[in-house]
């Protein structure tokens, strides 16, 4: 077991090294940060001097070694725009993103189960057809389009919900400010959460439906029906339990990819989270922040994957034997 653990950790470190190298290598192709930092009539001479000060004229290897040395001490550089350590900037933006992902998850969990179950039980009803039709549209419309449409319908036309930002937030702990403590905060998170959920929700409805239909065909459900058990009890206690196992496995992975969709959602709603910050950083050629974001996100993925693998290994020893052989 220990050998397996050590192996996985070494693998994780190797992956992080590659991520840092790639993240650092692309920075040369992002453009010249000086253009965003200085006015238009500043002379080339002064620009060159600033490039020297920023260390942009050093060789790639020198720059990378300096970066890696600092990174090992928890220093990922200083954002040009925020004038703060890049890691601090990201940690400050993280709660907004996590709350948004949480809001979207609530919507997905709350809606996908009843909708999925219903369309599985009554696959031919009109309502089911409507739900399935909508889910196709939901999957095919890009997130930013959904978001803009919702803003124009619910903010501009009806005036029900705010169009941008987080609204009133309440300080909870450290960098964490929450949306869920005020009515204004709740109103602000509704549209962005729906937009973010709009891609995943149809996916889960369809997944639950497919699994459920399969389960409903199984012998034990038929047997339960024959015994005259209340159909609702069959659907929601016996069948659903077996349906949800694969769904939860897939869901764990999908919530990870949702972080990627936050970039689009946050930009449209000007949600002050990590995704919005990242896109802005790209526009401003704020290289330290871009590199730090890629490394932090990479780190989150590597850590979760490693933990998932380790848990698999603990739960099912055959898995790690098979893996070690591979």
């Amino acid at each position, binding site marked *: 077991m220990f050998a397996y653990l050590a192996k996985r950790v070494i693998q994780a470190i190797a992956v992080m090294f590659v991520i840092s190298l790639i993240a650092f290598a692309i920075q040369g192709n992002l453009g010249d940060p000086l253009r965003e*930092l200085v006015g238009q*009539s500043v002379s080339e001479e002064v620009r060159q001097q600033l490039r020297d000060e920023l260390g942009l004229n050093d060789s790639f290897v020198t720059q990378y070694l300096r970066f890696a040395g600092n990174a090992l001490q928890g220093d990922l550089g200083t954002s040009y725009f925020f004038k703060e350590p890049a890691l601090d900037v990201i940690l400050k933006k993280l709660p907004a993103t996590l709350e948004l992902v949480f809001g979207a998850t609530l919507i997905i969990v709350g809606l996908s189960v009843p909708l999925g179950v219903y369309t599985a039980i009554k696959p031919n009803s009109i309502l089911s057809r409507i739900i399935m039709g909508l889910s196709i549209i939901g999957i095919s419309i890009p997130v930013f389009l959904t978001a*803009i449409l919702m803003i124009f319908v619910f*903010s501009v036309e009806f005036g029900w919900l705010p*169009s941008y930002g987080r609204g009133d937030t309440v300080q909870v702990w450290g960098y964490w400010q929450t949306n869920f403590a005020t009515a204004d905060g709740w109103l602000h998170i509704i549209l962005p959460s729906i937009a973010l959920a709009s891609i995943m929700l149809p996916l889960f409805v369809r997944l639950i439906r497919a699994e459920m239909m399969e389960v409903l065909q199984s012998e034990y459900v038929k047997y339960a029906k024959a015994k005259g058990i209340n159909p609702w009890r069959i659907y929601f206690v016996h069948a659903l339990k077996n349906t949800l196992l694969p769904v939860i496995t897939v869901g764990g992975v999908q919530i990870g990819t949702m972080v990627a969709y936050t970039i689009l959602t946050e930009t449209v709603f000007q949600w002050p989270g990590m995704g919005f910050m990242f896109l802005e950083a790209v526009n401003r050629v704020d290289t330290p922040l871009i590199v730090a974001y890629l490394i932090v996100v990479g780190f989150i993925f590597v850590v979760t994957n490693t933990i998932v693998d380790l848990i698999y290994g603990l739960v099912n020893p055959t898995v790690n034997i098979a893996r070690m052989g591979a």
Partner: protein
Amino acid sequence: MTKFVRSLAAAAVVAMAPVAYAETTVRVAYDADPVSLDPHEQLSGGTLQLSHMVFDPLVRWTQDLQFEPRLAESWEQIDGTTMRFKLRSGVTFHSGNPLTANDVDWTFDRLKQSDDFKGIFAPFTDVEVVDDMTFDLKTSEPYPLVLHTATYIFPMDSAFYSGTTADGKEKAEVVKHGDSFASRNVSGTGPFIVSEREQGVRVVFDRYADYWDSESGGNVDKIVLSPIKEDPTRVAALLSGDVDFIAPVPPTDLKRVEEAEGVDLITMPGTRIITFQMNQERVEAFKDARVRKAIDYAVNNAGIVDRIMRGFGTVGGQASPSGYLGYSEEFAPRFDLEKAKALMAEAGYADGFSITMMAPNNRYVNDDKIAQAVASMLAQINIKVDLQTMPKAQYWPAFDERAADMMMIGWHADTEDSANFHQFLTACPDDATGNGQYNSGNYCNEEADKLMNEANAETDPAKRAELLQKLEGILYEEAAFIPLHWQNLAWGAKSGMNAAEIVNALNFPYFGDLVVETGS
């Protein structure tokens, strides 16, 4: 007990109610927020917008591009190189310190150290303090743009910015990137105090209770500025009433904002010219003025403004916008396809040639679409264009390398003066002086440069206008570059805000003077 709580709550409501109603708050959404609270860190629209809220300039521009006294009450020319300013008395900084000539002197020295501003202040040698309320602004040569430049002097609170911080850094230091005292702390004389700031999310300004300008009817107590970068979201925020004032309104939404109830669209011609430059070092044919003229004749810039800009631009035939000294109606936009073909034939290029073209796709309004249109217009005179558009972050390094035969550049003169266009865009490139730094066409005409130098030493506005118009005339005759249009400016505001009174062609609204109708 419950009775006590209830009466306490009632008392609290009564006590708080008048405060809540008396306050006039304006919520503003721009496409970006200032990069720093330090007015000297970056010379950009965002910084100047902030400066006009938190600081005050010595003089400022009016809507019709005249000078208006602000912290300087009056001024007079003492000799060829000295302008004497009298300061307004009774002005205090947000810290409570009174404004004196020493603050101006201190601010001037700091401007001279700022990478972004020292170019503008290069002709100026010194500020000499005469007495507490009087100072002389000195130039090395007679210089016509003293007042133009004085609009960039926003006196800073020298006492507030002197000394060192807890960690031993100079408070006055101008730091381009990274953390400095001035980038986070601010004390000016302006109508508003920065009370809260989360960069990239929100800046809150409170009215400065002791603001000197009591004649101004400005009645805004609080401004909340949020950057909303996405065009559709910014427009939606205005239309839904989440914000009261937005800038810019994107061309695609002009009609929508104009027709919407409860909001007004305010537009004005701007002073930024969009142009194409033709690189004579890369393409032999561009050395021939007839070819350059043919291109100018082939480009239908009125059509571009009409179709691509949806009427939201002012068609240009030269660099200087109307209101600048160099502007003349004589230099009208050219468009005549037959003439263009004839000129090409005359120059021996009837069969045309192939060129490369580059333009940014996120810097100017519709920049990539404009470039596509120009490319297809050139096809009509047999010039085959290989067009490449890219984000500005990649475009500027390419522009510096002069990486294509024709390149797009837009320019706004920091000095609000015609000579500035020539100095950066069409003057003979010279590394020592920095002239022609953005001249990717490598156009060079000694006579034009001579006119610019003469104009820059001429303090009589009438004679200056003559020189600058002559200069523009040469560039026009030679088709030194292809002028397209001046971008218009557009703001959206809640009706009844009187926002049209405080905006200007330079795009720094004077929020201190904003009179919002209350109780409507």
